[in-house]
């Protein structure tokens, strides 16, 4: 994965802002507000774009390459994770031209299993850490959770922020925690697992909060900002994702650095996925139309993409039994 290193993202530019609770608060509360009605209307209007033929084929293949194929259940087993990893490498066994997914997303204890199956296929292993999904644990436990996943070979860490701290206005605590987790992502070889910061936007509730959380995470050095755990409703929505895309766009204008965006949870159909890609294209810009900069956290979405892909190629819909359930 190529990226502009974000390890020094806040060096210099944001030092004054992140140096104290009060300056951080002043900055976050000084960001332009979001008008809910206007934001939702804009997101809905982007959803009316009509993507057909060649554009649709392009979008479906891109969406497949952006999927973080996810299983985050208490009932997960090594067998289940191995099956999912196989699927991520070859989503459509009947068609070798079908691209692989971006990553497999699992709990930390399943990282080694996933890594073993994926090998050097190019498909990454992402692990949810930091007392996912609630984030209700002491910092040292969250950091241990993160290090454990990194040591097991995770390429990417999906952390959750402390929503309680955020909602009670303790922004410095949230910031420091992200910085600490980011440091825990470091590997002995000098490389670092990529850090995705989950906001759980369904708990933050307002778009103003989403915009503030986005800036907080970007300044703290997150590589990606991610909407949701998938455990809280509503999970990803088009307007929430749009607010985050605006944030990464504005952040690049200010710093020159690109941050990725990952909507997760509730995106189930190709039609929905294409709406997200249109939004990426028109809000953040075409540079983000790449698995390095945009991901879908999903599980059932992949099979719908495969069905649509087959339909585009053959002109016929196959039944769901022609696609693997893993």
């Amino acid at each position, binding site marked *: 994965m190529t990226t502009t290193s974000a390890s020094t993202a806040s060096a210099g530019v944001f030092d004054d802002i992140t140096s104290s609770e009060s300056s951080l608060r002043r900055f976050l509360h000084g960001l332009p507000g979001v*008008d809910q009605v*206007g*934001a939702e209307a*804009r997101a809905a209007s982007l959803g009316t774009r*009509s993507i057909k033929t*060649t554009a649709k084929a392009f*979008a479906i293949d891109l969406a497949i390459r952006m999927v973080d194929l996810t299983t985050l259940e208490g009932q997960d087993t090594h067998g289940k994770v191995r099956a999912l990893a196989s699927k991520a490498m070859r989503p459509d066994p009947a068609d070798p031209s079908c691209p692989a997914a971006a990553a497999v997303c699992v709990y930390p204890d399943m990282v080694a299993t996933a890594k073993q199956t994926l090998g050097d296929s190019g498909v990454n292993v992402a692990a949810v850490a930091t007392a996912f999904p609630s984030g209700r644990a002491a910092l040292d436990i969250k950091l241990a959770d993160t290090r454990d996943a990194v040591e097991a070979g995770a390429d990417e860490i999906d952390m959750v922020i402390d929503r309680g701290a955020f909602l009670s206005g303790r922004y410095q605590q949230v910031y420091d925690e992200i910085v600490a987790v980011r440091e825990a992502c470091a590997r002995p070889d000098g490389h670092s697992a990529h850090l995705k910061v989950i906001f759980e936007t369904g708990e933050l509730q307002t778009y103003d909060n989403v915009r503030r959380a986005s800036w907080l995470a970007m300044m703290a050095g997150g590589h990606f900002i991610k909407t949701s755990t998938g455990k809280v409703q509503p999970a990803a929505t088009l307007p929430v994702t749009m607010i985050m895309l605006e944030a990464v766009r504005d952040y690049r204008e200010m710093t020159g650095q690109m941050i990725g965006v990952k909507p997760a949870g509730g995106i189930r159909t190709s039609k929905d996925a294409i709406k997200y890609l249109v939004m990426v294209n028109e809000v953040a810009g*075409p540079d983000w*139309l790449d698995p390095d900069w945009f991901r879908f956290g999903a599980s059932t979405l992949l099979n719908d993409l495969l069905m649509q892909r087959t339909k585009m190629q053959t002109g016929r819909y196959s039944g769901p039994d022609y696609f693997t359930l893993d």
Partner: protein
Amino acid sequence: MVKVPDTSTPFFEYAPAPESRSIVDIKPSYGLFIDGEFVDGHGKSFKTISPSTEEVLAEVAEADEADVDLAVKAARRAYTRVWSRMPGSERAKYLFRIARLIQERGRELAVLESIDNGKPIKESRDVDIPTVAAHFFYYAGWADKLEHAGLGANPQAHGVAGQVIPWNFPLLMLAWKVAPALAAGNTVVLKPAETTPLTALLFAEICQQADLPPGVVNIVTGAGATGQAIVSHPDVDKVAFTGSTEVGKAIARAVAGTRKKVTLELGGKAANIVFDDAPVDQAVEGIVNGIFFNQGHVCCAGSRLLVQENVADEVMERLKRRMATLRVGDPLDKNTDVGAINSAEQLAKIRELSDIGEQEVAGAGERWSPACDLPSQGFWFPPTVFTGVTQAHRIAREEVFGPVLSVLTFRTPAEAVEKANNTPYGLSAGVWTDKGSRILWMANHLRAGVVWANTFNKFDPTSPFGGYKESGYGREGGLPGLAAYLKGADA
């Protein structure tokens, strides 16, 4: 600094997604719709063309004075014998039926509107036609409740209404005129604009389909002379006009001293006012929607952007970046944001004023448009913004009626109000701020018929619409829109 993306080689190229024309059956020629029938006119005929291709769509009859007289007589007969005697609940049934037929034939109407007018299908499909149906539904509900509308014990219709409408929202302007007139018990003679007659003629078919009694709605096509014949016909009781201030003044002179009631909805040069605490991304959307919606062919368009000086650069950078994503082209493509200019005449006017504007701002500002490939056939003008504009410039004072935005700055709320009101017009205004108290203060001080807060170009049949000063008088929509078609209730 915000970089304006280079859109010449987009990565995610949207394939053409044209709406099918096959749903629409355009006849080679159309007569006049008088007394429930299509009849040949006495006069000449004229061609209506598609502004996006310049293709001739149909020959349309040009009604002369004799034709207009027949139409007014038919309307008078229908008023005296049928419509004025019919209980309101029965009139409502016809209006509800028309509203449902408009919904059922919505796609057909939307495609035809886009072909004849040049506006993008996504606007005709998602805005124009649904709002047309909503107006008929809304006023249908009033037809049997006139005594309970607070307009007097037994309000009476005027009689025959003569209505002349513009080309920017052909069917929507018809609905604004016809629905309240019929609900109040009037009969109508309506003239659509000469460049966009086709949806009005399809509406005539819908009246037939709804079994509307003959003569209640009469549609006469033609140009200025036909409109003049309607307005000055002695047996017309009520005149309603939407269009230019110049023609509006002529109409006011023509009916002065007669018993005729008049409502005029005329031009505008609306200020869209952006404060430094505005929700900036939504404000930029509102600016774009305010001036580039319907190619700027909107009387209430936010054609003057007043932006607080301390955020002017940031707003401009964001606006330019957003404008670069506007898709200009085939009106029938579902992904088109900005369609064709309605006529060669209008295009020439836009070009002329823009060229003057370019000279006016030279040295202080610039004329800017995003890179866009305009089709070689048809009438096209790119989304354009002028910076460095002052109140003294013609581009800030005259109505361009095209996709052309003038940007001015202000320092304080009082200065914003002063500049916003410093125009002979007063149709609409927009205010963008997160501060509720400032919205209310601004709304109290802006001399405009509609003040939108943190939004722009929002229309609803329940909300009255109309102007101050040279933007006209009378209100359309809501209860005031009904009152305008009832005796003694429109004061």
